[in-house]
């Protein structure tokens, strides 16, 4: 049993306006994906209030931009803008290890986390997250 993130498994970067929202989501994803999937959370503004912190988003993306890659999921609005801005500050070879996914945050993160725990590739994990957009829950 892994006790720490496994560098052979694709990771997740979760970006939200709320620290508690992404920390709770990381807890949920960790339960289903196991401890081998690295999950980074960036939530809230610099002062801890609801909002975004572009510097921390950039730091997280830089930290995640390595083999075997990471899927990036955002909640809404300025989280998306912050991720897009951060991508522009990364080198091409860093961007290649990141898949920014247009998917509902909770469903996308759960789907991506479970698939990542199987050792799937970045493209496969990103596709699983994208498919969450069309998944019916009723």
């Amino acid at each position: 049993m892994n006790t720490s993130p496994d560098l052979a498994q694709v990771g997740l970067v979760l970006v939200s306006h709320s620290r508690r929202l992404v920390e709770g989501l990381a807890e949920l994803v960790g339960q289903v994906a196991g401890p081998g999937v690295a999950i980074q959370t960036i939530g809230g503004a610099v002062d801890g209030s609801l909002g975004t912190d572009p510097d921390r988003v950039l730091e997280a993306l830089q930290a995640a931009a390595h083999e075997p890659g990471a899927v990036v999921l955002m909640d809404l609005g300025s989280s998306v803008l912050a991720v897009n801005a951060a991508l522009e500050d990364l080198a091409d070879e860093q961007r290649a290890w990141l898949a920014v996914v247009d998917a509902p945050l909770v469903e996308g993160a759960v789907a991506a986390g479970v698939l990542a725990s199987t050792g799937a590739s970045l493209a496969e994990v990103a596709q699983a997250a994208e498919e969450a957009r069309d998944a019916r829950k009723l």
Partner: protein
Amino acid sequence: MPANSDPPANGPEPPLSRARERGSGGEGSLADEVALIVALPDGIALHARPAADLVRAASKLQTPVTVSANGKRANARSILEVLALGAVAGTELTLSASGPGAAEAVQTLAEVFASLGS
């Protein structure tokens, strides 16, 4: 007879409350569907963690398996589809697959279901 006609053999009695084959009875054509009916063990609902165990096992198989319950169908490799089945303890689920490896695939996942309660 296909190889999956034997009940799961781990334990003194079959771990599934009911397991039976519902093959189409053909002569091994690729279109043959193999199906097994399994029931979720007592106290186990197909919540996120057990569903994830199933999805991980299904992802390792070459053959796609469909899980059906409550009038819905799910790709066994999709955690969101499996969760949307809404299966609670005692729910009967049908595992089905077609083509090469279908019998082994449904048998493998039936054993995963049986082990969920242990």
